[in-house]
């Protein structure tokens, strides 16, 4: 969907704060830890991302990154029935739970290592495209979550890699974990932008088969 997250090629954002650190405030570190340590059952990575995209656009564009994650964690938990809005606002649990065991630093590291998740799947369908094939992307905005950015819509490119089938983001955001063939598609800058800095520079995107047609 054409939400505020779709930033590629958008204008008027000004210079990049090239010297910015990883965090400005301590609450950012704490929110990062909270997002990783407290997950809501059934939330897929794509539903997480899609939920974030439904924030009010003015908020999405104006608040720090981890403030968005904070709101998203609350929203996902409220949506799934894990918390209520009132609990999030008050910071008080309606019913207290027993304190769980402390996760040590070593255990955190093991958890972190386990986040290396294989998204590839075996599927029966043969890939529709081969390396070197010219393709054109869907020109219309997707109805829901998508990982085809608007700047690469209706654009012609060339398949430069095939990764087998991966879990498809668009359906994953609806809780449906089907897989589709995934390709890396290379686009000439001159085919994406009418004022490309150098027409022969390229932009490469990882795109699922349903986004693509033969060109």
């Amino acid at each position, binding site marked *: 969907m054409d939400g505020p997250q779709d*930033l590629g*090629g958008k204008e008027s954002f000004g*210079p*990049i704060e090239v010297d*910015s*650190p*990883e965090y400005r405030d301590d*609450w950012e570190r*704490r929110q*990062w*830890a*909270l997002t*990783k*340590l407290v997950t*809501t059952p059934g939330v897929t990575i794509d539903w997480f*991302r899609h939920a*974030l995209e*439904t*924030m009010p656009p003015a*908020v999405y*564009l104006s*608040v720090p990154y981890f*403030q968005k994650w904070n*709101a*998203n964690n*609350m929203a996902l938990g409220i*949506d*799934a*029935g894990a918390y209520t*809005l009132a*609990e*999030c606002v*008050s*910071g*008080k*649990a309606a019913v*207290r739970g027993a304190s*769980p065991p*402390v996760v040590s*630093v070593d255990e*955190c*590291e093991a958890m*972190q290592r386990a*986040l*290396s998740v294989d*998204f*590839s799947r075996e599927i029966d369908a043969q890939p529709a495209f081969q390396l070197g094939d010219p393709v054109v992307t869907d020109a219309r905005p997707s109805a829901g979550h998508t*990982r085809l*950015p608007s700047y*690469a819509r209706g654009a012609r490119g060339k398949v430069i890699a095939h*990764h087998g089938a*991966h879990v498809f983001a668009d359906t994953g*955001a609806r809780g449906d974990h089907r897989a589709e063939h995934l390709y890396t598609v290379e686009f000439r800058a001159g085919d994406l932008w009418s004022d490309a*800095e*150098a027409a022969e*520079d*390229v*932009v490469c995107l*990882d*795109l699922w088969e349903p986004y693509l047609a033969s060109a």
Partner: protein
Amino acid sequence: MPSFDTKAIEKIHRDLHTHLPSDPALRVKALESLVVEKGLVAQESIDNWIELYAERIGPKRGAEVIARAWTEPEYHARLMEDAGQAVKDFGYEGHATEHTKAVQNTADTHNLVVCTLCSCYPFSLLGMSPIWYRSAAYRARAVKEPRAVLAEFGVELGADVKVRVWDSTAELRYLVIPERPAGTEGWSADQLAAIITRDSMIGTARDLALEPS
């Protein structure tokens, strides 16, 4: 279970925006105290996760991987073939690195990594991303005017160098292998790792200095 309903979650986000205080520190405190009270996490676990990222996980990992690739042609080949597998030699697999692709800078090619749709990043190899990587300005501009972006980072590319931008739109993550600088012949992998910067592995730096920064 999640509703997987766009309109429902959009409404919850609007309600949160209406009812929560504007100060993010207060918002995070509210969530933290809520989940601790609910028994979903222990406060000390949060401290431990923060310590993990402060002490153990950072760009030094990626630098070690690349230094080894510079010094061992066989490892370089494996890294280029499947970086997600190759980093497991170090035990550096983890958050968002299973499907990592290494992309090699050369004299006539420069690689730059971005995630325009969120802020995907190979955390387990590079640690927490810098704020600029997550900023709207970088996400918006890196795909459209990579040369202007690079210039803001102090990298001036000639017309003879082609830019390849990698927009991380699926679950593949990208790791730029910078060029090994002249004057490092005979250096050990440890010596080499010390001069490989985070930005050079994202692609917002190109030429490495011979002194660690």
